């Protein structure tokens, strides 16, 4: 029993996902093109502990959204395993247990305008998980629960009668949160939930999410490209680049002592609101084409510390103090 409590809620082991982006078969045959495989996620391993908020950050194309979708089952992994609450949910033979385990996780999406069915009333939207998971036995019970959830996210019970288009972006995200919570999940995967919102609305939603986490003992996996947002909500942060996890550290550690060169570059790129006039190291280059990633460490073309080993051997995620870093230079203590 004590073991179950200390066991991580979610564990990913060398998870990978490839997408076949080859041209249509006929074109390939006629023009002699090779098959093109996009390695969206490559060898990612991490754990999420109960009650914590783990953030995954990175720029577009780094694979963080793909990881989120692999966890909730929208994609199947090409390699690796995912274990949720003791159940291996990537095991094709354990369908029934996987379905049962997945009931305890829900997802919140980025686009408040596309994540609610425009033809459904809000109360139907929020009640859907309750019905599907058969958590209530009568209509009256469902109605009461929907009203309770709407109040919990800061909306009124009457809002249940309206349609999504009658609400603002921030309110729609609240509805999405209410929907996610109605299935009584313990684990929420949040895919950039505030990126499409104005900054003052974002503050409301982030505060709401933090409160709900305390009230309901939730665990969050929070995906974002915005390091500042993540600093306000995360316990631990994982940095991804071109499908790989390059650094994983407690939040304070990451911001105080970033180790991976990419993490340092990302932190440096965050606009300086304090206007301290600090000198910025010039940012070099752009994210390479994911269809033709560099050999060795994916970051080596942009890295000021790259050596020959970096150009040939992909680094493994190794502990470095309180953090875990995938960098030869860090391992060799060059930086």
């Amino acid at each position: 029993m004590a073991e179950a409590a200390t066991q991580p809620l979610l564990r990913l082991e060398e998870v990978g996902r490839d997408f076949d982006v080859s041209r249509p078969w006929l074109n390939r045959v006629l023009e002699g093109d090779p098959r093109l495989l996009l390695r969206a996620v490559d060898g990612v391993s991490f754990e999420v502990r109960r009650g914590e908020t783990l953030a995954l950050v990175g720029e577009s194309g780094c694979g963080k959204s793909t990881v989120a979708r692999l966890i909730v089952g929208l994609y199947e992994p090409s390699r690796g395993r995912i274990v949720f609450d003791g159940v291996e949910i990537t095991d094709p033979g354990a369908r029934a247990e996987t379905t049962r385990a997945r009931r305890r996780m829900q997802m919140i999406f980025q686009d408040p305008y596309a994540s609610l069915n425009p033809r459904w009333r809000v109360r139907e939207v929020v009640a859907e998980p309750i019905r599907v998971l058969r958590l209530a036995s009568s209509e009256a019970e469902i109605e009461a629960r929907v009203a309770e959830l709407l109040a919990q996210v800061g909306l009124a019970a009457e809002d249940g009668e309206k349609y999504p288009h009658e609400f603002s972006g921030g309110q729609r995200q609240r509805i999405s949160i209410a929907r996610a919570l109605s299935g009584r999940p313990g684990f929420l995967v949040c895919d950039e939930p505030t990126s499409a919102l104005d900054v003052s609305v974002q503050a409301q939603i982030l505060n709401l999410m933090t409160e709900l986490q305390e009230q309901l003992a939730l665990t969050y996996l929070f995906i974002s490209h915005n390091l500042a947002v993540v600093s306000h909500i995360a316990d631990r942060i994982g940095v991804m680049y071109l499908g790989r996890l390059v650094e994983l550290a407690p939040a304070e550690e990451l911001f105080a002592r970033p180790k991976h060169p990419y993490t340092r570059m990302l932190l440096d790129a965050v606009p300086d609101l304090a206007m301290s006039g600090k000198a910025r190291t010039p940012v070099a280059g752009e994210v390479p084409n994911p269809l033709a990633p560099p050999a060795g460490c994916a970051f080596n073309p942009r890295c000021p510390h790259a050596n020959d080993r970096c150009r040939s051997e992909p680094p493994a995620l190794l502990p470095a103090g309180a953090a875990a870093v995938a960098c030869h230079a860090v391992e060799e203590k060059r930086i």
Partner: protein
Amino acid sequence: MRSALARIWDHDLAYSFRRSPITVAAAALTLVCVAGALAAPWIAPHDPFDVATLSLNDAFKPPMWVDGGDAAYPLGTDDQGRDVLSTIIYGARISLGVGVASVIFALCLGVSLGLVSGYVGGQVDAFLMRLADIQLSFPAILIALLVDGMARILLPADSHGEIAIPVLVFSIGFAGWVQYARTVRGSTLVEKNKEYVQAARVIGRHPFAIMLRHVLPNVMGPVLVIATIHVAVAIITEATLSFLGVGIPPTRPSLGTLIRVGNDFLFSGEWWITVFPGIALVVLVLSVNLLGDWLRDALNPKLR
């Protein structure tokens, strides 16, 4: 109740409707045609199919404003003494009935296949769309003729009269499912990637439930426009088939059959037997078409 009516009146769609006199006229005309057709037994001055009331003495009477006309037969009579006005009203009923029924059939078939094709994707999609492509290379009339011909061969000869209408509905419907399927497939492909569908998948809903309850309501918009215009096309197709002699038999004629039958007398001077059903057909189809045009523009978010 009052406020609900007020809201409907005030809705953008109703506003656009009110603003276009042509559309209002077309809608009124369609309503008149539909109401008239439905109420045929009560409003037709005579029952043209009751053999007992017919008399060959009344045959070939011209319309009432022409010399020799009779006020009892306002648009004249045909070669069997049947009142042309009454035959038009009953004929419109059959034309409309066949038109609407075949559209409903085509809609159900096309929308379901389009939904499945778009949502499931892969081999199923490829197969269905190839079927659609193959069918599109045949003209609709030809397909309807083919289906009709096969039915005549396969079914016993004496039942032809009774089954003419269902066979016709099936053949016109079958000729027209592709446009629904393609449109719905396109919209489904778009909706499938939207996050509310992904949310439903995460919640654990069965793919059929997602297709039916989430995707379908969001792809029906363009379908309504296609259906309205298709009604007009279906009526014309039925008229064409009847004119060619493979549609509704003359015992209970549709407008197309009336035109065909009356065509034989056109050049011997009894023009009213074919012209009036022709005008009725044009009016019916035109008003439905105009209504469909308005609906398409009104529902197009880019034009608003």
